[in-house]
C-alpha cells in the first residue's frame, strides 16, 4: 500500500496534534469575552483536561468544574457494604472491575475482604464473570454492576447469556446509574449556575443525543457532546463558548465519529429487556428518581439483592470528606481539608480519590505546576 497516500489512522495521535490544539486554544481565547462556568460531566473528561494541561491553556475566566460522571465515585458507602457483605457473609465469588476494590465502605472494602480470605476477583468484562460462574457451578458468583449507560448493556447481555444457558449461580448486584436524571437533578437544584455543559461522549454513544436535549430546552444552558482526547475537548469548549457568546443554548455534537443521534439501538434494547429504572442513591447527591437500574421480574433470579439477605447498611459518609460537593461541582478538590494531607490515592477517604476517573485523583496526580 502506498503509505504516503494511505496513512494508517492511529486514533490517538490525530486527536493530540500540537498545532491543531494550539490553534483551537487561540480561537477560544479570541471568541471568549465574558466569564463562564462550564461543567465537564465525565470523570474521563476531567482526567484528560488535567493530564494534557488544558485548564492552564484556557483563558482564566473560563472556569471548568468537574461533574458527577464517575461511576465509582457516586457509588455510596452502603452499596460498597452490600458488595462486601456478599463476599464475606454469603461466600460468593465476587467479580468486579479493578476500580471497585479499594473504595472504602463503612468499615471495610472489597480489597480488605479479599485480604481476609474472601474470594474477590478483578475481571475486565462481564464475559469473564460468566466464565467464572461456569467453572464454579457449586458457588454463587456475583458481579458488581457499576457504571452508567455505557456498561449496563454489557451487564444486561451477560444476564441474557446466563438466562439462555440456564446458569443458576450467576448474580448481579446492580448499582448502575443513569446520567440524564442526575443532570436534571443538578440543574433543578440551582446550586451552581452553569453556562455550559460538556456532555458525556460515551454515554451518548449508547443513549443517542436526545436524552440530553432538555439541557438547552428547559434550562437555557449550552451543551456539547464531546470525546475524550484533548482536541475533542477543545473543540467542545470552542462550540460552547460560541453558543454562550451568541446567547444560544442548544445541544451540539462534537463527537460525531462515535455518537449518532439515535444512539446504539441494540444496546438500548438489551438494557431495556433486562433492566427497569428505579430510584438510586448517589453519593453526595442523594436519592435521584429513576436514575438506577434493577432487574425486571423475568430476570429477578439473577438479582443478588433478591437472592441473598443483605443487611441494609447506613448511608453515613465520612464527615470530613467533601466528595459530595465535588461531585456536584460546588467545590474543587483543593477546597477539601483532607486533600493530600490525609486523603491520597494510597489512603483514600472518599471514592473521588480512588477511581482513576475521580476528580480528586486526577487533581492529585496531574495537578498543574503552580497549584
Amino acid at each position, binding site marked *: 500500500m502506498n503509505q504516503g497516500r494511505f496513512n494508517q489512522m*492511529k486514533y*490517538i495521535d490525530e486527536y*493530540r*496534534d*500540537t498545532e491543531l*490544539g*494550539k490553534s483551537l*486554544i487561540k480561537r477560544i481565547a479570541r471568541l471568549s469575552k465574558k466569564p463562564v462556568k462550564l461543567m465537564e460531566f465525565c470523570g474521563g473528561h476531567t482526567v484528560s483536561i*488535567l*493530564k*494534557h*494541561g*488544558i*485548564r*492552564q*491553556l484556557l483563558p482564566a475566566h473560563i472556569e471548568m468544574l468537574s461533574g458527577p460522571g464517575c461511576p465509582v465515585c457516586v457509588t455510596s458507602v452502603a452499596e460498597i457494604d452490600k458488595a462486601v457483605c456478599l463476599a464475606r457473609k454469603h461466600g460468593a465469588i465476587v467479580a468486579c472491575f479493578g476500580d471497585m476494590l*479499594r473504595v472504602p465502605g463503612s468499615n471495610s472494602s472489597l480489597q480488605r475482604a479479599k485480604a481476609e480470605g474472601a474470594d474477590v476477583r*478483578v*475481571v*475486565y468484562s462481564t464475559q*469473564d464473570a460468566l466464565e467464572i460462574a461456569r467453572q464454579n457451578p457449586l458457588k454463587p458468583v456475583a458481579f458488581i454492576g457499576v457504571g452508567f449507560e455505557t456498561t449496563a448493556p454489557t451487564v444486561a447481555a451477560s444476564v441474557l447469556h446466563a438466562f439462555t444457558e440456564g446458569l443458576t449461580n450467576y448474580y448481579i448486584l446492580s448499582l448502575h446509574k443513569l446520567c440524564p436524571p442526575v443532570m436534571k437533578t443538578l440543574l433543578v437544584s440551582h446550586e451552581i449556575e452553569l453556562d455550559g455543559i460538556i456532555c458525556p461522549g460515551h454515554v451518548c454513544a449508547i443513549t443517542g443525543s436526545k436524552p440530553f436535549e432538555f439541557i438547552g430546552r428547559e434550562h437555557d444552558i449550552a451543551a456539547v457532546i464531546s470525546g475524550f482526547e*484533548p482536541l475533542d475537548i477543545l473543540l467542545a469548549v470552542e462550540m460552547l463558548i460560541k453558543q454562550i457568546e451568541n446567547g444560544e443554548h442548544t445541544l451540539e455534537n462534537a463527537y460525531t465519529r462515535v455518537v449518532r443521534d439515535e444512539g446504539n439501538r441494540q444496546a438500548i434494547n438489551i438494557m431495556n429487556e433486562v433492566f427497569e429504572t428505579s430510584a438510586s442513591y448517589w453519593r453526595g447527591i442523594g436519592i435521584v428518581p429513576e436514575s438506577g437500574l434493577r432487574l425486571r421480574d423475568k430476570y429477578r433470579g439473577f438479582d443478588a439483592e433478591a437472592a441473598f439477605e443483605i443487611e441494609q447498611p447506613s448511608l453515613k459518609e465520612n464527615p470530613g470528606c467533601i466528595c459530595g460537593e465535588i461531585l456536584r461541582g460546588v467545590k474543587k478538590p483543593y477546597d477539601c481539608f483532607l486533600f493530600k494531607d490525609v486523603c*491520597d*490515592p*494510597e489512603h483514600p477517604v472518599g471514592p473521588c480519590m480512588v477511581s*482513576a476517573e475521580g476528580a480528586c485523583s486526577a487533581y*492529585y*496526580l*496531574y*495537578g*498543574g*505546576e503552580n497549584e
Partner: protein
Amino acid sequence: MNDKVLLAHGSGGRLSHNLIEKYLLPYLGNPMLNKLDDCAVIELNGRIAFTTDSYVINPVFFPGGDIGRLAVCGTINDLAAGGAEAKYLSLALIIEEGFPIADLERIIASVSSTAKEAGVLVITGDTKVVDHGSADGIFINTSGVGVIPEGVDISGSRAKEGDKVIITGTIGDHGIAVMSQREGIKFSVPVVSDCAPLNGLVSDILKVSTAIHCLRDPTRGGLATTLNELAVQSDAGILIEEDKIPVKDAVRGMCEILGLDPMYVANEGKLVVIAPPEDADRVVEALRGNKYGKDAVVIGEITSGHKGRVALKTRLGASRIVDMLTGDLLPRIC
C-alpha cells in the same frame, strides 16, 4: 524418573545433590561453584558494589524473558546503575513442591545464557523446596558484587542544574508484555519484555564520559517514579517533554485500553542517564551504538525550579506535575 520437584529435593540429602548435579551445575558450573563449599571465596580490588533482589514474577515465562533471565538482569542492572562492573552472582531458589522439573531446567538454562551474555559467574547458591501452596511456583533471589572503576562517581543525589536527562529506549515494554499474559486479558500484544543485562551499555557510556552524574533503571513504578526519586535525592527539579518520551505504539494502545499511563509501567532493560550537557550528545551516541540503547534520546533536563518534583511539558505546551506511582499498578511484575 520424577518430572516434578519434590519436597525431598530440598532436604539436603541424595535428591538435593541429584538436583544440583543434574540441573544446576551442567548449566552454571565454574571452578568456584563446582567446589560446592559453604561459601565462595573471591578476591577483588577497589571499591566494591553489592546488591540483592528477589524475583517473584507471575507468570514465570513471559514474552521476551522468564524469571531466570530477569533474576540475572535485575541484579546486574542494579550494579550497573551504580557504575559497577558486575562480577559475581549468588542464586537462591525457593521452589514450590510439584513445580515441573522441565520448567526448572528451562529457567536455569536461561540464568546460564544471560549470565554468559553479561560476563558474570554464579559462584554460590541455595535451593529450598516448600510445601505445595507455600509459594507460587518458583521464587528466586540473586545477590551480586561488582567493582566500580576509578574516577566513576554515580549516585542519585548528583544531578545538577542544566544536566540532560536521557532514557535509553522505549518505556513500558516489560509491564505490558507481562500484563498481556495475565488471566482475563485475552488479546495478544506484539510487545516483548525489554529484560536485558545493561552492564555492557553502562561500560560503553563510561568510555565516552566519566562525568555521568546519575544512572537508574526504571523498573517498578516506571519512568515517572524513578525521575521522582532522582529529583528528591538530588534536591533538583526535573522537566521532561511529553513528545520526546519514546513509547511503542502497541504499548501506548494497550495503555489506552486499560487506562494506564506508560510513564508508570515497568521496564527491565532501560536506564535513565543524567549527564552534564557538554557530554550528553556523546553519551546518546554511545548508547545508540549498543543494541540495548538504540532508541536512546534526551527527554528533558535538570532545572533550578520546583525542587524535588518532576514536571512534564504536555504536547499542547502546558506543564503539569508528574507524581510517583501510587497504589499498585500491576502486582508481581518482577
